[in-house]
């Protein structure tokens, strides 16, 4: 189409203003042309001609304006658009125009002001920097148009579309038919017959031909073989065929394959079919054989185990650190997740030569495990069991006394002849021995030892064990040589000796202790003795005049005598010093004033009494100690009345009980026999003298203000007092109000109004000196004139 060419040429000319215009222009005409071909044959040329004219005008206008603002371009383009709205082909022109317009606008700052944009080159540079491909300027899809410039869409011709579709279908059908015919052409139809089927002669000929061909083929094969043999290729050929045989799969090829089951799951005599396990196509791992049934069974078992909900983690499970084969078990944290993280690792074994597996190794391992288990020692100790009171026969055996050879400890006896002189001290010792007296080992001996220091007193009383006695206490030597004159050391067993030694040690220690105590107390005693001596001296001086022939009665001593013996004195054992003191005092007194018989007697009495009496009652405090002791004694005897009388105190309720101390008498407190006696429980009678006496009883009750109470109020008051509490706040307020009102009422005057107007009136009259009172404010205001107005 000539016009279209012109079209293009003009468009290109226009496009030179901007480089991109060409690209867009080239694409459009083909479409344009096509369109024109179908639709606008009639109007195409006219339209294009018209367009051309318009375009030239517009372009001229465009060129004239040069680089103008987008608005002008837009205006011109819209102008153009309005004119040729109906022609769709013109759209492309306008779009191109707009393109140019945009480009013009893009390179200059827009007059609209706020929209900034870059030119295409700048945009391309930016895109290159960002790493994007450059703008495709030609690809402008303007079919849909924009909201601002809506454009009519293509007119869809349904007829044409349908025709096209039909054509396509027809072509496709024809093609298929052709293919089908080709295929079917090869197959013989029923109509067609080979000539030799009916005609025997033809058939015979055919069969002969076939035979001939067969023979030929055989001959050829033979020839070939001969040729091979000639060339020595036969072996090669045979090898080839042999190889083929070898390549056939057999049992020996199973060597090395893994079977993914435990070897125990295969039982003897059973046949199980193993298949290759599924694996991905791209997986290069080696093949694994499985039995489908076994796989299912294993999975089912696993599911059952999971469903059982066994605890994942047993905190107190005693995991052995060494596994079955006596190897250290690796300790892992959160081992329950290992299967999830690392994947399942099923039991598997490899097939050996010839595709067999005998599981010999596994059985060997089992045997080793069993052996090790037997050898293992459990760390759990044997639990506690009841100890038997009697020795078991085994223990009895160990208890057997080994008969030791008697070592004869023969002390080299000194050639000492026991003489009578030697025996003398012994005799002394045995003189005043106490043969098991109770006081042995107690104060007596000690005291006597003390006395030893002071005065010559018989030797300390011996203990039964004379050997011990004879031993020097301060002697530290073990088994010191017994002093001369002691009886011979007997021959004894070693054990006996040991025992004796131990006993002696103990005794010695005790004695040392006692001596120690004694020494301490001894010092004290010394002091006391000194004091006493001084006192004694004093006493002696006092008593001396009295002593002459008179029995001295000391107040304290008499009192003490009357008190009697203190039977439990000294039994507690804490009174060693005291006892000593006592004894010492006694002795001193005895020694100092041998004449004061009474004391001595008393003392003696005391001592004897102490020995013989038995105590039931508590120890009586010694009254000469002080007032406290005396009081205590009295209290114990019951001479003092220390019981507290019950006095109940009632809280004063709301000032209705003015007396703060108000006791509720407890009638049951009167229990002692003296007051009981005064109670009268008999028959009472009126006095005969007072026969005609009829008193006028009038009990008046008053409240706190002095007002006389009504019976109701009186009863209320009584009940308040009785119960101990009065009314609440509201009640009392009401009562108060009522009382006030009553008071007011009383105060009210009977002759006057409550406000006292009569009195006021009278006062006013007095003041005005008139018998009347004018009731208004001022005379003027009450005039008739004022009122009527």
């Amino acid at each position, binding site marked *: 189409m000539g016009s279209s060419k012109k079209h293009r040429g003009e468009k290109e000319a226009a496009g030179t203003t901007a480089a991109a215009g060409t690209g867009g222009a080239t694409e459009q005409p083909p479409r344009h042309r096509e369109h024109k071909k179908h639709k606008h044959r009639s109007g195409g040329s006219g339209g294009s001609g018209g367009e051309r004219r318009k375009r030239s005008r517009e372009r001229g206008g465009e060129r004239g304006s040069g680089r103008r603002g987008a608005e002008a371009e837009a205006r011109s383009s819209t102008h153009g658009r309005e004119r040729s709205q109906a022609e769709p082909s013109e759209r492309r022109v306008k779009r191109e125009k707009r393109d140019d317009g945009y480009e013009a606008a893009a390179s200059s700052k827009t007059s609209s002001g706020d929209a900034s944009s*870059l030119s295409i080159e700048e945009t391309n540079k*930016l*895109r290159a920097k960002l790493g994007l491909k450059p703008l495709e300027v030609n690809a402008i899809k303007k079919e849909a148009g924009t909201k601002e410039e809506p454009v009519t869409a293509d007119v869809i011709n349904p007829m044409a579309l349908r025709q096209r579709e039909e054509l396509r279908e027809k072509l496709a059908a024809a093609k298929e038919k052709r293919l089908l015919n080709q295929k079917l052409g090869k197959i013989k139809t029923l109509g067609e017959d080979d000539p030799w089927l009916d005609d025997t002669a033809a058939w015979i000929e055919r069969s002969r031909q076939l035979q001939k061909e067969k023979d030929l083929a055989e001959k050829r094969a033979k020839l070939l073989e001969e040729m091979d043999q000639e060339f020595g290729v036969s072996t090669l050929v045979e090898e080839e065929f042999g190889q083929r045989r070898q390549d056939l799969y057999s049992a020996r090829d199973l060597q090395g394959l893994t079977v993914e089951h435990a070897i125990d799951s295969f039982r003897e005599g059973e046949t199980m079919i193993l298949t290759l396990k599924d694996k991905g196509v791209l997986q290069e791992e080696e093949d694994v054989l499985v039995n489908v049934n076994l796989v299912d069974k294993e999975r089912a078992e696993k599911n059952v185990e999971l469903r059982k909900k066994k605890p994942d983690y047993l905190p107190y499970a005693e995991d052995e650190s060494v596994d079955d084969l006596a190897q250290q078990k690796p300790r892992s944290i959160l081992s329950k997740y290992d299967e999830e993280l690392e994947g399942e690792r099923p039991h598997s074994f490899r097939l050996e030569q010839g595709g067999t597996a005998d599981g010999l190794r596994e059985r060997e391992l089992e045997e080793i495990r069993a052996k090790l288990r037997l050898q293992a020692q459990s760390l759990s100790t044997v639990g506690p069991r009841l100890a038997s009171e009697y020795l078991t026969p085994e223990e009895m055996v160990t208890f057997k006394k080994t008969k030791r050879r008697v070592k004869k400890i023969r002390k080299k006896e000194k050639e000492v002849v026991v003489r009578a002189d030697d025996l003398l001290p012994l005799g002394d010792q045995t003189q005043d021995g106490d043969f098991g007296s109770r006081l042995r080992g107690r104060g007596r001996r000690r005291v006597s030892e003390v006395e030893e220091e002071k005065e010559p007193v018989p030797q300390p009383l011996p203990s039964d064990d004379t050997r011990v006695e004879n031993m020097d206490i301060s002697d530290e030597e073990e088994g010191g040589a017994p002093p001369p004159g002691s009886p011979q050391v007997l021959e004894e067993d070693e054990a006996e000796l040991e025992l004796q030694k131990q006993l002696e040690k103990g005794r010695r220690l005790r004695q040392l202790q006692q001596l120690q105590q004694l020494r301490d107390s001894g010092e004290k005693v010394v002091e006391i003795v000194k004091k006493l001596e001084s006192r004694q001296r004093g006493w002696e001086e006092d008593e001396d005049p009295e002593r002459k022939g008179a029995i001295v009665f000391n107040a304290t001593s008499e009192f003490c005598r009357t008190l009697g013996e203190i039977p439990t004195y000294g039994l507690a054992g804490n009174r060693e010093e005291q006892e000593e003191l006592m004894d010492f005092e006694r002795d001193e007194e005895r020694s100092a004033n041998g004449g004061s018989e009474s004391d001595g007697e008393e003392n003696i009495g005391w001592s004897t009494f102490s020995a013989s009496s038995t105590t039931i009652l508590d120890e009586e405090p010694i009254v000469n100690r002080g007032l406290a002791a005396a009081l205590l004694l009295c209290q114990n005897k019951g001479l003092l009345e220390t019981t507290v009388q019950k006095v109940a105190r009632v809280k004063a309720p709301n000032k209705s009980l003015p007396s703060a101390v108000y006791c509720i008498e407890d009638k049951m407190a009167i229990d002692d026999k003296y007051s009981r006696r005064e109670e009268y429980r008999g028959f009472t009678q009126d006095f005969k003298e007072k026969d005609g006496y009829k008193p006028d009883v009038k009990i008046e009750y008053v409240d706190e203000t002095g007002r006389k109470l009504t019976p109701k109020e009186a009863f209320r008051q009584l009940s308040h007092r009785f119960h101990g509490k009065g009314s609440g706040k509201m009640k009392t307020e009401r009562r108060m109000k009522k009382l006030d009102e009553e008071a007011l009422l009383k105060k009210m005057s009977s002759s006057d109004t409550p406000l006292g107007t009569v009195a006021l009136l009278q006062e006013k009259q007095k003041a005005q000196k008139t018998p009347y009172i004018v009731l208004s404010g001022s005379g003027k205001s009450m005039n008739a004139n004022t009122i009527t107005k």
Partner: protein
Amino acid sequence: MIEVVCNDRLGEKVRVKCNTDDTIGDLKKLIAAQTGTRWNKIVLKKWYTIFKDHVSLGDYEIHDGMNLELYYQ
């Protein structure tokens, strides 16, 4: 090549030239280059539709001259 207008109604109005097969992310980069912000701080919206970065303009049917709302995050 289409030109898209982006307006943030606070004074920034840009016209960006881009291809139809460009993604929104690329468009954002172009906008950022012109406005001077960071591209990952830009949000392009149309009413409540937020345009996602990985989708192309063609898929969103963003045509030439369309106005997009420019927000910042």
